Structures are given as structure tokens and as C-alpha cells.
């Protein structure tokens, strides 16, 4: 396949196809209301929902921002704690045996029950929501990072150890990067659900606002268009959360989607620099590593 063609195809695919399917969804939504004559207080039309969004834009966007912040803080906290936990568990069988059942049990407790307790402990502000989101992200991160660590080829570790790497260096070179791929699989799955977690937190009790709180208020007033406005924004937020994770993944794991390193990678910048400034690289084979000149040179 010619490269330019592929590039255009992928742009069309990546932007055009999702837009088309969203348009179709909105079309079906409008059509269903039209066909079955559904009243506006049961299901508002797309136009009514759009009006509800634009009409209360500043409040909604403020709420979305609060929910997004809860998501980001909680997500980052969950990843950090989960990663640290997985590393500790990978170091010792004892720690792993001791912690795993506790972790599984913690996942069996309904998040809504924990949310109630968290309000008692942490109040109505940002903190309990962040903790809920962190709790949701935490477990998949632990499981997948552990999987990544155990999937590392022992020969690979032996090789770098035989090349003189310290244990820590071998870990950083071979084992740590091997956790990125499974970790991002976990993060993509939990990204959207984290937004739900933030909403659950806001529902339990909130004085700090957020889209969840907005949704609850609109619902209690039977303001269906406003409810749907919040739903649409929550969906958008979930999408943004997911895209954020994908963007970070692409940035941190370029080898998964690219065949060559980026132009601004260190070695490429180095090569560009040496080409323009310093004399050309010797091509006579006389450049053998480690001060051991070949006798043929």
C-alpha cells in the first residue's frame, strides 16, 4: 500500500467513521422520539438536550471540570499506588501471598458502600471522590503490572546481568518497560469506569459540585433535558478520559505503534547534530567498541 494513501485513509477512518456513527446514533434517537411520540419529560429530543447544554453551559462546564479533576487526581493516585503495590508484591512471595486476598476482598465490597464510609471519614469535598476513583483504577493496575513482571523472559534478565548490569539497572532496563503494555490495557479499561466512580462519589454527598451532583439535582426536579445534558457531557468526559490514556500510552510506548523512533528521540537528534556539525561517521569499520581495534584496520 502506498504510504500517502494509507495516511489519508487513516485520517478519514479515525475522524470520519466515529463522527458518522455518532451522527447515526443521534439520528436514531430523534427518529425514535418521532415514531413513538415520546413526550419530552420522558426522553428529550437531541435539539432539546442541545438547548439544555448551551442554556446552562457555564454551570455544566464548571461541573465537568470538577469531575474531570476528580478523575485525573484519582487516576494518577491509583496508578502510583497500584504500581508500587505490584512492585512490592513482585519482590517477595510472602508479600504477594499476604496482600492478594486482601486486594481481591477489597474489590468485592460495593464501591457505593465504601463511598458512604469515605464521606464520613473524608467529608464532602474532593478527597472522597479521588479515593473512589483511585480504588477503581488501583486493582487492575496491580494485576496487570504483576502479569507484565512475570512475563519477562528470564534469559533477557540473565543477558543484561551477564553484561554487568546491577539488579536495579536490570530491573529498569528489562522488567519495568515490560509492564507498560499490560498496564495501559488496564488503564484503558478503567478510564471510562473511573468517571463513573467520580459520579458515584458526587452522588453520595457533595458540596463541591460536579456533573454527578448536577445530574442528581436535575433528576430530582424531573428536568429531563438537563439530566440528558449532564449525561451527554459525562459521556464526552469518559471519551476524553479514554483518549487521554491513549495519548499517554502512545507517548510512553512508541514502539507499539511505530516502526521507527520519533524524530526528536535522543539518538535521532544526536545523529542530526553530528551530521550537520562534526565530521562524518567513520565507515571504515575501524570504530570498534571498547578500545579494541581490529587487527585488520
Amino acid at each position, binding site marked *: 500500500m502506498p504510504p500517502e494513501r494509507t495516511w489519508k485513509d487513516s485520517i478519514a477512518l479515525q475522524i470520519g467513521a466515529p463522527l458518522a456513527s455518532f451522527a447515526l446514533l443521534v439520528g436514531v434517537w430523534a427518529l425514535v422520539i418521532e415514531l413513538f411520540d415520546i413526550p419530552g419529560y420522558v426522553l428529550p429530543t437531541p435539539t432539546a438536550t442541545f438547548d439544555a447544554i448551551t442554556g446552562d453551559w457555564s454551570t455544566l462546564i464548571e461541573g465537568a471540570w470538577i469531575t474531570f479533576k476528580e478523575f485525573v487526581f484519582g487516576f494518577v493516585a491509583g496508578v502510583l499506588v497500584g504500581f508500587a503495590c505490584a512492585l512490592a508484591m513482585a519482590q517477595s512471595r510472602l508479600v504477594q501471598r499476604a496482600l492478594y486476598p486482601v486486594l481481591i476482598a477489597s474489590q468485592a465490597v460495593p464501591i457505593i458502600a465504601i463511598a458512604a464510609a469515605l464521606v464520613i471519614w473524608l467529608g464532602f469535598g474532593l478527597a472522597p471522590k479521588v479515593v473512589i476513583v483511585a480504588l477503581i483504577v488501583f486493582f487492575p493496575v496491580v494485576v496487570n503490572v504483576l502479569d507484565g513482571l512475570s512475563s519477562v523472559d528470564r534469559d533477557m534478565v540473565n543477558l*543484561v546481568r551477564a553484561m*554487568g548490569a546491577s539488579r536495579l539497572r536490570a530491573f529498569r532496563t528489562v522488567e519495568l518497560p515490560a509492564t507498560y503494555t499490560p498496564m495501559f490495557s488496564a488503564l484503558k479499561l478503567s478510564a471510562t469506569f473511573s468517571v463513573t466512580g467520580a459520579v458515584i462519589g458526587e452522588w453520595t454527598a457533595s458540596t463541591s459540585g460536579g456533573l454527578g451532583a448536577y445530574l442528581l439535582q436535575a433528576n430530582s426536579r424531573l428536568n429531563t433535558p438537563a439530566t440528558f445534558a449532564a449525561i451527554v457531557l459525562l459521556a464526552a468526559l469518559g471519551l476524553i478520559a479514554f483518549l487521554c490514556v491513549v495519548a499517554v500510552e502512545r507517548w510512553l510506548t512508541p514502539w507499539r505503534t511505530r*516502526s521507527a523512533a520519533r524524530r526528536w528521540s535522543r*539518538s535521532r537528534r544526536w545523529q542530526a547534530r553530528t551530521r550537520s556539525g562534526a565530521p562524518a561517521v567513520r565507515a571504515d*569499520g575501524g570504530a570498534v*567498541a571498547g578500545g579494541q581495534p581490529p*587487527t585488520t584496520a
Partner: protein
Amino acid sequence: MPKLEIDGVTRRFEDTVALAPVQLAVDAGEFVSIVGPSGCGKSTLFNIVSGILRPTSGVVRIDGTDVTGQTGHVGYMLQKDLLLPWRTVLENITLGSSLHGRVTDDELERGLALARRYGLGDFVHHYPHALSGGMRQRVALMRTLAMARDVMLLDEPFGALDSQTRLEMQRWLLSVWQEQQRTVVFVTHDIDEAIFLADRVVVMSPRPGRVREILDVDLPRPRTLDVLTSAPFSALKARILHLIYDLEMADAA
């Protein structure tokens, strides 16, 4: 003084003798192949020389120095290329330097020169998944070369390649070896490969793993493909086949 000396090395795993006393001296710049059926202890010997495994008895010396059970004295390469998927070709070649701190511009330049010299110049910034099996093994060998060890152990490095690529890689390895003047110990189960590459072929046999015979390969260098069908080559091959398979039949009888 031999470059590499394996002196009375044995290895037992519980009750089984994996390796009966092995005596082998390899000169500097020599290319030695070790050939034998599975279970003949060639991989055990490989692991002992590389320092990953300790022998039950015996000593491994490099330049007369006892290096038994110590890693880092030889460069080694396996059938698996063991390239790090998140590193580019150049970063994989300079892996050894990166393990001791930041890779210097000088080390990068040497890595690049190696890659260019041996046909990887256009791929230095590619990730391993974008390369073919043969190219990946080339990168693995560049990485071993860049480690700057006089002795290189290669354990069936081309075992996973198709026969055409394998032949191409063998010829390429010979040209690299001739230029770089390293001492090479090459483990393989492919008799043609063992003869084609080596100055001497060490034939090993199983139960217990031991050196059966060491044969000189008196074929002119540089070797071309014609060597593979020459009379001395066939004679050597017949001799090795006889050593390996008559023995097996005698065992079975």
C-alpha cells in the same frame, strides 16, 4: 597461552552426569564449533563458560585468568535474539554501555559505525518488531560485538532462521569474524554449519555429555559456497555423522 581454556570441567545435576570432564583450549582468533545431539551437554558447557552456571569441578580460564562462575568475561548470544522491543536497533546495539550510565556520543557513534558496516545502516532507528528474523540476529551480534569481549559464545544463533537466511547469515558471520578477529565458540546441532564456519569442530556425545573427538577443518579461507560440496567437506561430515549416529545406534543396541 590459549585464549580460552576449559580445564577438567564437569557438571552433575543431582544423580546425572551432565558433563564428564571436558578439556578444550581455544586459541586467540580461533573459530571453534561444538556439535552434538541434544543432551550431549553443549548448552551446559556454554552456560559454564559464560559464567551463568558453576561447574561441579574444573576451571575456566581466559588469558590464563580463572573466571570460573563469573559472568561478564565473554560476550554471548542465543538462538533467541533477546532484543528489547522498546529500544531501537542502535539502542539495542549500545545496550552494554547503557547499563553503566548514559551512553556517550562516542559509544553511539561506534554503534552506528558497526550497524552501517554490517548492513543495518538504514534501520538504526527502527524498533526490533519492524525487522526480519535475520536482521534481528544481526543486531544481536552487533550488540555482542559492541560489548568488546575477546571471546564470543554463540549458542545456535541461527537455529530459528530458514535455511536460505541461515546460509546468508553464516557467510556474514564469517566476514564479521574475519574483520573483528574475535575468538568464537559456536554451539550448533547442524553439522554443515559447524564445518563451514569453524577451524576445529568439537564433537560431543550424550549420556554422559562428553567430548567425543576434536577434528581440524582444513578448508581454505575465505570460504565460499563451493566448500559445502567439496570432497574434504563431505569426508569430514561423514566422519562426524559416523561419530554421532553410530554411537547412538550402539547405545540403542
